[in-house]
Each structure stands twice: as structure tokens, then as C-alpha cells.
């Protein structure tokens, strides 16, 4: 028989793990203890944990800052369960019996294999280059003035800077929380997200121009944007933090919905508040992208009576 004692951080992360075979384990700062801790709020001889046939017992050795179990200060020997947490001074300990059950292994699975490809330097570089290409293409197709190289370089530079800063921030978070940066992975993720966003903008324009149905197309696009942003944030959290699955979903969805709706704010205002000018579908596209048939003016006029109802 033996006892496992973990020194854990406030966040729950395990800092040290000790296996102790003694029946009675003494804990304190003095070097004659079985478990020696360096926290200066702990007494030289602070507490004792004993393992008997009836279970695990703890007792305080008249320490200055005391031994706390479930928020109560322990005055006399007290039985605890395997896996319970104790507080000595400012140090958190978790105590386990050796027969304590552990969770099943998490399967590496296909999802993680796909995600691992994101960490390839080639994937990161190619997606960043492709994004830069898209940015210049967009700048070129919407330019009605003389060609100016400087403007293209600026456009690409701004987007690349945003992408790199995003990857760096998550990398730093990852370095602190998980001791791993995953910078290349984060860079691939945000680049791919931006590429998809560009495509989505194009699909949005195309749908809007062809259906001329603002509400329908906008609602569909907003939902897609939320899903996409939610995935990006979920994956970034997955690589850079230790949050549980539920927390990851919660945070990513919350941030995605808030950001997208916030960016829609002026649109919503324009569509609900009075304005002297009508709000029309502005974006028009070249003939090659027009796929719907046209009507005669008589048919159009017949359908127009709706705008005169009061």
C-alpha cells in the first residue's frame, strides 16, 4: 500500500506528484518530513496523513496557518476520501489511494490527425501565401484607378499582420498554459479562416445579387459566419489551453456570436430606423455572375404593388 500526493496549482494543474510508502506521512518544511514543501506559510512540521485499513486520515500538528479540508480547519484526526483536496498554508494538495480509478485514454482519432497537419510548416506557409494572393486579387478586381503597387503591398501587409498577431497571441497563451506555442498551427488556422471568409464574402455577394433577397441571404451568411468563427476559436482554444470541452464550446460560441452581431450592428440600425434614402442592394456583379432570368417591365410593375400597401 502506498499513498499518492499531488501538489496542484489553483487552476487544478498538477505541479508535483509523489508516491509515499509510509503508513504515517509527515508533511512540513523541515528536512525530516516525508513530504518536504517549500511554501513559507507552512510550518516545519505541519500535518500528518496516515493510511489505515479503515481509510485515509489527516491531522494538523498545531500549525500556524492550519490544515483546511473542504473549507474547515482541522482540529483533530479526520477521515478523507481518495482524490480529496487539502490546503496547507497556501499550498493545495490532492491525496489518492493507489487503487483510485483513472479515466479512460482519449483516442487520438482522426480529428487530431487532421489537426496535426496544421502544424506542418508547409501548410502554414502555403495558406498564408494563398491568403496574400486572395487579398491582392480582391484589391485588383475592385480597383478603378491607376495600378499602384504600394496599395497592394499595403493591403497584403495589413492582412498578414493581423494573421501573424493572432497566431502570436495564441502562441503566447499556449506557451504560458501548456508550455507549447503551436505558432505554426495557429497561423495555419487563422489563414484558412481568412481564406474561407473571403470565399464567403464572394458567395454572399453572388447570392445577394442573384436572389435580391437581403434578409434571407444575410441570415444564412450570419449563421455560417458564426459557425466558422466558432470553429476557429474552438480550435485555437484546443491548442493553447487546457479548458474542458464544454468550456471551449461555451467561450468560442459566445465570442463568435457577440463579434458577428456587433459587426452587424450598423446594418441592423440601418434596416430598422427611419432614413430619407431607401436601403437598396448595392453590390452589382458582371454579367458572367448573373444567373437569374429577367422579367418584363409589365411583370415587374405588377409585383410592385406591395410597396404601396400601408
Amino acid at each position: 500500500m502506498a499513498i499518492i500526493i499531488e501538489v496542484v496549482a489553483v487552476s487544478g494543474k498538477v505541479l508535483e506528484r509523489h508516491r509515499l510508502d509510509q503508513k504515517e506521512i509527515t508533511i512540513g518544511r523541515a528536512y525530516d518530513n516525508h513530504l518536504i514543501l517549500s511554501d513559507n506559510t507552512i510550518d516545519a512540521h505541519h500535518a500528518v496523513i496516515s493510511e489505515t485499513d479503515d481509510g485515509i486520515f489527516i491531522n494538523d500538528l498545531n500549525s500556524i496557518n492550519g490544515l483546511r479540508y473542504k473549507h474547515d480547519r482541522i482540529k483533530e484526526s479526520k477521515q478523507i476520501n481518495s482524490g480529496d483536496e487539502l490546503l496547507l498554508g497556501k499550498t493545495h494538495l490532492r491525496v489518492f489511494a493507489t487503487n483510485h480509478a483513472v479515466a479512460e485514454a482519449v483516442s487520438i482519432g482522426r480529428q487530431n490527425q487532421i489537426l496535426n497537419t496544421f502544424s506542418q510548416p508547409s501548410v502554414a506557409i502555403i495558406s498564408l501565401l494563398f491568403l496574400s494572393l486572395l487579398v491582392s486579387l480582391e484589391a485588383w478586381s475592385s480597383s478603378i484607378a491607376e495600378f499602384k503597387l504600394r496599395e497592394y503591398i499595403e493591403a497584403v501587409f495589413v492582412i498578414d499582420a493581423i494573421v501573424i498577431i493572432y497566431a502570436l497571441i495564441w502562441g503566447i497563451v499556449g506557451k504560458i498554459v501548456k508550455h507549447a506555442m503551436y505558432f505554426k498551427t495557429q497561423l495555419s488556422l487563422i489563414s484558412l479562416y481568412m481564406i474561407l471568409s473571403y470565399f464567403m464574402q464572394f458567395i454572399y455577394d453572388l447570392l445577394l445579387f442573384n436572389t435580391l433577397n437581403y434578409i434571407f441571404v444575410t441570415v444564412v451568411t450570419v449563421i455560417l459566419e458564426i459557425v466558422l468563427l466558432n470553429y476557429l476559436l474552438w480550435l485555437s482554444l484546443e491548442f493553447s489551453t487546457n479548458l474542458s470541452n464544454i468550456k471551449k464550446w461555451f467561450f468560442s460560441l459566445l465570442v463568435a456570436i457577440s463579434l458577428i452581431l456587433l459587426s452587424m450592428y450598423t446594418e441592423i440600425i440601418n434596416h430598422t430606423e427611419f432614413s430619407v434614402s431607401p436601403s437598396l442592394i448595392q453590390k452589382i456583379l458582371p454579367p458572367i455572375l448573373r444567373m437569374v432570368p429577367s422579367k418584363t417591365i409589365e411583370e415587374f410593375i405588377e409585383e410592385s404593388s406591395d410597396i404601396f400597401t400601408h
Partner: protein
Amino acid sequence: MKAYIYFLQLVLLSSSLAFAESEQNAKELFNQFSDRIFKVRVLELSSGNQASIGSGFQIGDQGRIITNFHVVSEYVHHPDRYKIVIENKGGENFDLEIINFDVVNDLAILQSNDVQAVSIPLADKLPAKGEPIFSLGNPHDLGLSVVPGTFNGITSYSLYGRIHISGAINSGMSGGPTLDKFGRVIGVNVASSGNQVGFLIPLEHLRFFIDRSESLWLESNIYEQTIRDQLYENQENIYQELLAKDWKTSKLGQVIIPQEIAQYIQCWGENYHQDDQKYEYIQSDCLANESIYISRGFNTGTILLQYAWIESQELNPFQFYTLLTLEGTAMSPDNNASEDDVTKFKCHEGFVKAAPNDQALAVSKVAFCAREYKKYIGIYDVMFLSMSVQDNNRSLLGHFSISGVSEDTALKFLAKYFNGITWQ
């Protein structure tokens, strides 16, 4: 789509030819008429504050006073919150009531039983062109003044039949008379458009209005309905005539377009081209530069047609359509109205092909929008915007805004307008 305001400034640059000789006349008139012109004021009942000020004069012998509708419009819209007061030369005040008004011709006739004043006779006919005339009124609330001017005849091309004169009509003089050299009324001061250009409501409208008001006394609860009916009847008259005749067309780029569709509509064209510009832009704006005053910040009865022909050999289709997207965003209605006056625009958008005999297989992305007048049911401001989208490097933008029309008028106008556009 730029400034078409030039019209008012261009109309007349000639001035004061007859002034020297008419100075003597002006003095005499001042002495003779100073007790016949009233200051007309609309006061807020609760605070006593002055809401508007203008001039007025008595006609006939029953205490009837003529002024502009726009001088007393606050009272017409809120008879429970305002009252109309006139002040004579001696500073005496009298309360007045409205007998009748004509929102389209900007006239109102008021009644008081207490006023003892000498009336001013109406002229039998208008003076000859170039003859001196005298506008009387109360400019900027500074007291009575006589402004000599020159009669220039009725513009034959006026939507609402105004006379323009060379003479300064200033705010506050609205509602005052303009007299010929014999001291008879030839029109009512109504508006000014800058230096030495004034507008009158002509004698003919005034006489017709006086006759129609003979045995009338409008109750305040039908003011709103009366305005609505007058606006409705006016648009019926104007558009019945406008829709019945053939429209004058001209060519813009590769398209024949309706332009000066009536004599009171005038067009101005501009051609923008700069050396480093990669496209050609030709614009044509046509409008009737007159409107009907309903209340402060709310006017109607305007007609505006705008076109732009855009063509480019240098831009690729995506760049060209970016340009079209930018150009199409600048459309707005031609009249002023606020949230209190009109509903939000409702629009219908779609792709419409040109008439079957059209050679170019033109297709336009069109938007047709209407907003209703909140108080005047069945009257709308209507806007139409079309952009041809069948070609990669040329397009016609068409826009019209007509205000104060019925649904029927709007739909007929749209059909005639759209069928009047032919590609070559």
C-alpha cells in the same frame, strides 16, 4: 449626380433697369399703401412665441385678407396649438381665422370682423414686360417696405405657374402684394431665389382662388383632408397631361432616353473626364425646379430625372462593376421630408429586360421604392433606380424621383419611363 441648383441662379442676371425712374412711384406708393399692408404672424398659444411671420393685404370689403399658405401653415397643421394674428400700421393686433387655403398655389384667405382697412384692388390684366412693379411687405420683420422691380412676364414653362420678377423679395414679404404702377395687385409675393430674383403667384391664380372661396369657411377638422385632396387633384392634373403626350427624347451614350418630358422640365448635362480616369462618364439631370410647400422641412410636387452613361475600355468587368456599384449608391429623393411626414421607403428590386424590340438585349437591375405620406393617405414619394447589367464595359444608370403622387400615377409613370428607354 451633381448640382442642378444652377437653374435658379441662372434664370436672371439682369436687374435694376427701371429702378431710377420708379423711385418717385415707390415713395408715393409707400405713403398710399402703408396702412393697407399687414404683418401676419402665427403665434404659439402656450408660450406666445412667434412661429412664423409674413405679410398680408385686404381684398374686397368684407375684411378678407390674403397671404401665403406657407406663412400660416403651422396653424393649418396644428390649429389647436397656434393662432393667427395680424398687426396694422398703428401696431394694433387682430385675431384671424382661415377661410380657405390652396396648398398647391401657396395661398390662404383669412377673415377678421374687426379690421377696418382699405382694400387693394386687383388689376384687370398683367402689365407689359419691362414695366416697373412694386413688391410690398415686411422684410425680415423690419417694418413695411416697398421694393421696386421689373415685370418679366409669366414663365410659360412653369409647373405651378409662378411669375418671376427682377426685384428683391425677402423673407417676411411673403404674402404681401406686388402692384403695378397704378397700385393694383398683379400677384402675391411667394419666394425668392437669391439676388434680385423673385417669384409671384400670378393674378389669375389669385382671382380664381378668391372666387372659389366666396361662400366657403373651412372647419379646422377638415384641414388635413383638404390638403390631401388638393395634393391628389394636383398630381392627377399634372400627370394626366404629362402621361398623355409623347416625351421628348435624346441620346446618351448608346441609349435613347426620355429627357425634357415637359416644357417645365429642363436638363443639364455634364461630361466628366480626367486624364488619369479609366472611364467615361456622361451625366444628364432633368428637373422641374419648383415644389409645393407643405410644412417646414416637408415639400412635394417635385419631378427629377437623372441619367449617367458610363463606359470604359480599360477596366476589366470586375473593376467596371465595382465602379457601377459605387456610382449607384448616391441616389436619394428630390424632396425634403422627415420621419413625422413620411413612412420609410419600401422597395421592390429585380432584373428587368428592355422592350422586346430592343436590339442590345438590355437587362437592368432595378429598384422601385415608395414612401407614403403619414397624414395624406394614398399620396407617395416614389423613386426608381436602374442600372443596365448586360455588358462588361458600359452601362446606363437611370433614376427618377417624383413626389406627391398616387400609386396609379407612379405605376403609369414607371411604365412610360422604362419603355421610353431604347438601346441602339
